[in-house]
């Protein structure tokens, strides 16, 4: 398990990461979410010891620099285009293999795994963003690490590539490894991640499972429509449900469909529609980070 404790980082007067603590479990994909400028990349760099700052991060109870070969503990992808443009893809990976004490035979294996065998001799300076991401993922898995830390790995991937990445990361986690991945593609994250860490303005907002995050979001509830709306509202409010008028009906939070149906039946209120509504991860994310957005565009005046 990766345990990040009290991570903090200050750039001059700005606190980029503020006392951040969370865990990344093995066997699961943990999503890392936050608005632009929330401190996601800085947090990842702090965890790897690339930036100086406060707090500690342990990987199975040991700090990363206590391992002889850190590249065999955690594979990273922090920036898609981080390679020398005139060094071939294969040579780029060979350099990384040397640095990580990894056998050179792994290079061709990972190139095949990410589908870059045909361009192994090409210079990555001319690679598309998607191909660069694949090369970055190849570099991350080179040392067969127990943990993966990927910053926006889906950027630039085509739909087939995104689907491949999703399956790849889920498979990787299913083998007992831990995957920590940040992404702005919330729909993908919802399909891929088991747990999620949400930060805003450098602070922890939520660290929980995806299903829990969505369930606890206020957009989740039950929509109910009736010709006797006012009477139904009184009945539900009396049963301590949170009721708001919504789209010609009522939105009820804090009560399940079964209970609402029984209350309405007992009160003799006819029901035309009774439907459970689940919030999407996007709705949950937007609600959680509503106060943490630093860069918000102006809405067009109508």
């Amino acid at each position: 398990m990766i345990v990040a404790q009290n991570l903090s980082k200050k750039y001059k007067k700005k606190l980029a990461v503020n006392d951040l603590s969370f865990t990344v479990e093995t066997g699961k994909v943990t999503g890392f979410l936050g608005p632009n400028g929330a401190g996601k990349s800085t947090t990842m760099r702090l965890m790897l010891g690339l930036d100086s700052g406060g707090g500690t991060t342990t990987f199975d109870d040991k700090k990363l620099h206590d391992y002889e070969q850190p590249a065999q503990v955690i594979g990273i992808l922090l920036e898609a285009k981080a390679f020398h443009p005139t060094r071939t893809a294969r040579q780029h990976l060979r350099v990384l293999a040397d640095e990580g004490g990894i056998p050179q035979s792994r290079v061709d294996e990972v190139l095949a795994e990410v589908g870059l065998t045909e361009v192994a001799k090409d210079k990555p300076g001319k690679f598309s963003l998607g191909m660069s991401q694949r090369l970055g993922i190849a570099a991350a898995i080179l040392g067969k690490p127990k943990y993966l830390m990927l910053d926006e790995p889906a950027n630039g991937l085509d739909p087939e590539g995104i689907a491949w990445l999703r399956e790849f990361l889920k498979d990787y986690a299913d083998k007992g490894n831990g995957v920590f991945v940040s992404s702005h593609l919330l729909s993908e994250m919802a399909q891929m991640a088991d747990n999620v860490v949400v930060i805003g303005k450098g602070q922890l907002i939520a660290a929980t499972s995806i299903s829990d995050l969505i369930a606890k979001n206020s957009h989740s509830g039950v929509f109910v429509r009736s010709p006797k709306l006012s009477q139904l509202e009184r009945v539900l409010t009396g049963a301590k449900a949170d009721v708001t008028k919504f789209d010609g009906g009522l939105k009820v939070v804090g009560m399940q469909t079964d209970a609402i149906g029984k209350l309405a039946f007992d009160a003799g209120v006819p029901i035309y529609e009774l439907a459970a509504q689940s919030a999407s991860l996007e709705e949950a994310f937007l609600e959680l980070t509503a106060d943490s957005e630093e860069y918000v565009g102006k809405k067009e005046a109508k």
Partner: protein
Amino acid sequence: MIPILKAEFRKLLTVRSTYVILAIALLLVMLFAGFVEGVKGQTVNLLHNSGLLASESTNAIVFTGMVVAFAGLLLVGHEYRYNTIMYTLASSNRRYKILLAKFVAVSVFSIAASLFLIFFSPLCTILGAHLAGKQIGPQAFNVWSVVWHCILCGWGYSLYAFILVSIMRSQIGAIVTFLLIPMIGENILGLLLKGNVKYLPFNALQSIAVPTSLGNHTTSMHAVGVVAVYVAVGMLVSAVLFARRDAN
């Protein structure tokens, strides 16, 4: 340590710039030692100067040592320019190992290149003179003396470049500074320092190979001492900064 060393050598030898730099150094030597000195312009008296070939070796290092040094500068500069430094640092459990490996790679490369140029330059002169139908007189070529003077000079250039880029972390900034210090900075300072010009870094470095050519009238050993102090202090500052600064 060995895997990191292998990686640094692989980095150096798998980029186009290393070979372009070597090609430029060879072309310059062929042009000046072979064509200008050997084929053209030499009077019979100079061709019969017994120190001609030895001076070709030292001239090659003094003028192309700086070109060779760019390979070392780019080894570090590229890491910051293309952000591969993140992966390099994350893959090692101690940052000093990486700096040490880079130091060794730059040193080995510059010494090997200097060693080659030491013999390639007089060879070009001999070939040039031969092609022009001229005869070179008997030569006094103290191999050991020429080799150690020239290697230290060539190595010094590379270490200066290495230290500059390690401290600055900017490829362009380091290149400009590396060119401006000897070409402009030390010339201006020389006007102010007069006799003490021998304590300036590049002046001292060139004095290792050519002790009296710059009017310093210093000894090679004195120049080596001055350069060693610059390199030691520079390496210490680089190491401290490399260990403590953020990886970007």
